[in-house]
């Protein structure tokens, strides 16, 4: 019923007076794409959040990211299980809120002093909290943001799709990212 791209008719497009509301929606991506984007990054960073304290599986995945050489900024206490598993986060003390503020500053040189990050991956956050931070980064920075939480995050540049009844599906998506890194 709906008009799709292939048709001869122009596509439907939201615009200002018709209540445009999100100008740039996250591209909902498959795990492989996430892996590709991360691989292309010059200075990637994984930021982990407080949900790692509630979901052991997320810790395991974060550890695997670290093993692939991606530096981790651990927030909200997520450094603790990571450290216990031998990961050395590049940041432990600052909140996601603070880090998001830092990332937007052109003078920020990263936690190691060698330059700001071009691609930031987010794992293990309360969805509403992450949503706000992604919005801030979307509007006020050029950083490529990737949300790989269980919820679709429209303000990210790339995001996993939404959660389902099946949490295993979600874990398998994370695993697929790692497998392709």
């Amino acid at each position: 019923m709906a008009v799709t791209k292939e048709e001869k008719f122009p596509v439907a497009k939201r615009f200002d007076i018709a209540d445009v509301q999100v100008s740039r929606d996250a591209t909902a991506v498959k795990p492989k794409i996430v892996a590709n984007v991360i691989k292309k990054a010059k200075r990637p960073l994984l930021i982990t959040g407080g949900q790692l304290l509630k979901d052991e599986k997320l810790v395991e995945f974060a550890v695997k990211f670290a093993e692939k050489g991606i530096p981790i900024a651990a927030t909200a206490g997520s450094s603790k299980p990571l450290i216990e598993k031998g990961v050395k986060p590049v940041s432990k003390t600052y909140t996601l809120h603070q880090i998001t503020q830092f990332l937007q500053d052109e003078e920020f040189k990263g936690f190691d002093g060698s330059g700001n990050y071009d691609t930031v991956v987010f794992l293990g956050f309360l969805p509403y909290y992450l949503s706000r931070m992604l919005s801030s980064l979307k509007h006020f920075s050029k950083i490529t943001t990737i949300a790989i939480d269980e919820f679709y995050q429209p303000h990210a540049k790339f995001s996993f799709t939404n959660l389902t009844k099946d949490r295993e599906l979600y874990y398998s998506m994370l695993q697929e990212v790692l497998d392709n890194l």
Partner: protein
Amino acid sequence: MFELKKGAFVVDELRNVSIHIGKIVEEEEEEWEEAGPTPKPGIIELRKWDHKLLERYEPFYAPMQDFCNLCTMGPCDLSMNKKGACGIDLKTAKARLVTIACCIGASAHTAHARHLVDHLIEEYGEDLPIDLGGNVNVEAPVMRTVVGIKPKTLGDLREALSWAEKEIVKVLHSVHIGNEESYFDYESKALHVSMADHVGMEVADIAQIVAYNFPKAEPNTPLVDTGFGIVDVSKPTIVVVGHNVMYARPVTDYLDEQGRLDDFEIAGLCCTAHDMTRYSAKAKIFGPIYYQLRVIRAGLADVVISDEQCIRADLLDACKKAGVPLIATSDAAVRGLPDVSEWPVEKIVDALVSGKLPGVFLPVPEKVGQVAPLVAEAVFRKHGGERKYKFFENDEQLMEEVNKCTQCMNCVFACPHSLRVDQGMVHAQKTGDLSKLAKLEEICIACGKCEQACPKNIKIINVIMRANYDNLYNKTGKTRVGRGPIQDTEIRKVGQPIVFGQIPGVIAAVGCINYPDEMKSIVEILEEFLKRRYIVVTSGCHAMDIGMIKDEEGKTLYEKYPGDFDAGGLVNVGSCVSNAHISGATIKIANIFAMRPLRGNYAEIADYVLNRVGAVGFSWGPYSHKAASIATGFNRLGVPVVVGPHGTKYRRAYIGKPWKKDKWWVYDIKTKQKINIEPAPDSLLVAVETKEEAIVQLARLCIRPNDTSAGRQIKLTHYIELHQKYYGDLPDDWPVYVRSEADLPLKQREELLRILEEQHGWKIDWDKKKIVDGPIRPYDAGFNPTLVEEVYAKYTKG
């Protein structure tokens, strides 16, 4: 001596002289203190101070929407920082929204104060003295500092109110399309109007304390019953909801007169509950805003009295469905109900009991006092005193409802907390076990959005509450009645240890209940600080939740920690408007301990607080505009505030960048130099996600440049310990707080010195175990920091 009051007079002895009295005759102001530079400040008087703060604590914006539709030239897509049709950019537009939010918050308290003051003057006269007890001489520190007045009577409060109203209107003016071009200046206005908010709060609370004889700065106020299960269900129950106690208070008076106080239960939701208990310790506290639907749907109320603020906008609807008559009292929330002010009491009672009217608007406190008990009793009798209803008639009904669920997950996507209602339902469907649903009750704020979204119209709240009914019913405990201000004598005692740092900090846990976690998390966080002998202050909804969480021995924090404003004390100041006593306490430290003059001397005081008073605000579950303006008002006063993750939805934070070395400096009055300092505190408004993060962030933000070595050592010890405990390692930033080896925690001193040497390149003299080179600045006992040029000039001249 005879007093001339209102009107025109002919003095008998003076023939042919009639004295015509001009409209405003200002009394010769008693010279209680030399007037400072900014009494009754307008928008720009403190702008310079704001810019000092804003340059350091840079505003951070997290837009909630990409567009603006505030005016009819829009909607405008402002995404990626585009400008709208009026020329505004996204940050400025967001700063404008924040300014509006703070105006609304400030208006709420100020109008609340105005209602109270006008009403109380009518009842008690404008000359009712402001007497806050023998230990409170600095009666109105906020008014003194901001407005520059020292109110002696109820009538004097009007001057502060008029100032606040004027400033709110001026700031609101500035959000009209076509005003500010700079988000800095909107932020300055938000800070300004939020400072006015603290004046409004102080007026309101002082007025009700003196008129209603609430506790006057007493540490040992009574403990009152708190929680869902507190009422004796065999008595008619009157439930009060809201924030302005003046409407419901006469209920107590009336029942007292009749000698029937014990025949009823009077229990409150939200701040009116606090204030009812401050008036009479026989009143009880059901809980905060998210207990409204819980209480009403559980059928616990026989009549509900609502006043203003933080009441559910579907209260009438909820009451109607539960068959509970509603009496709305405040003109702020008339709820479309008929005004029955002129009706005789019997007619009102009849209309409500018979159900002819589901509710009435009755803004006459005396009548409310009579109507409510009569209605409660009649309704109670009508129902035959039955109270077996527990959200569902019976278990079959409950399971019928549960079985309707198709796991479509609409509820999950609607829920502010993304609670997995679907999983709870399916588990119950398969196993009959309600425990997964019960677990949700601990986070659910009973907002009802899931029910709005559910295609099966399942009464999800009822299901969740019923699933956890026993626990819910067991949420009973004790709240220490709000005590109002902090005593001057208490300040005298703790002023120095706070300013020097030996009391490691004051944690002020205030605000709403939109927690990211189970309710008990607030208690876990605060107890960490109580055990470590920080001073913990609380108010409003946080203060209630604390009152219903018990430890294994059945004790609440109030029962375990004393109510003194002292190390290890847990101080409930009272309702939301009592928050002014917290800002007031920080001001009093500057005044009573450090002898800084208050009158119209805001910037100096705020600068003092920022550099010296290790107080941190904490709002674990902020949701309202009032919470926004309260926090922003604290910020202008130099008090950092930590918010729970929902607080990011306020869209703006103030977050400094500790790695920007040039941002962190002060003038040192002692050495007469501008010197670089440690970034302490490094944020003024920042969100945290977990309770672990809350704890660590609060501890680190207590550090102040002025800490003595002993003080810094204590603060750093706690910070490092807590960081290690919850984050598994030393803090990333601990070295920046080290000025000399004396700042280091005793037990870890050597280890830390070694780290400083090895990882940070500091020079250590290992013989003397002294730091030779490394710190941002050396410790100097006479260090006397300020950010304000005028303060610097004042104390360096001569």
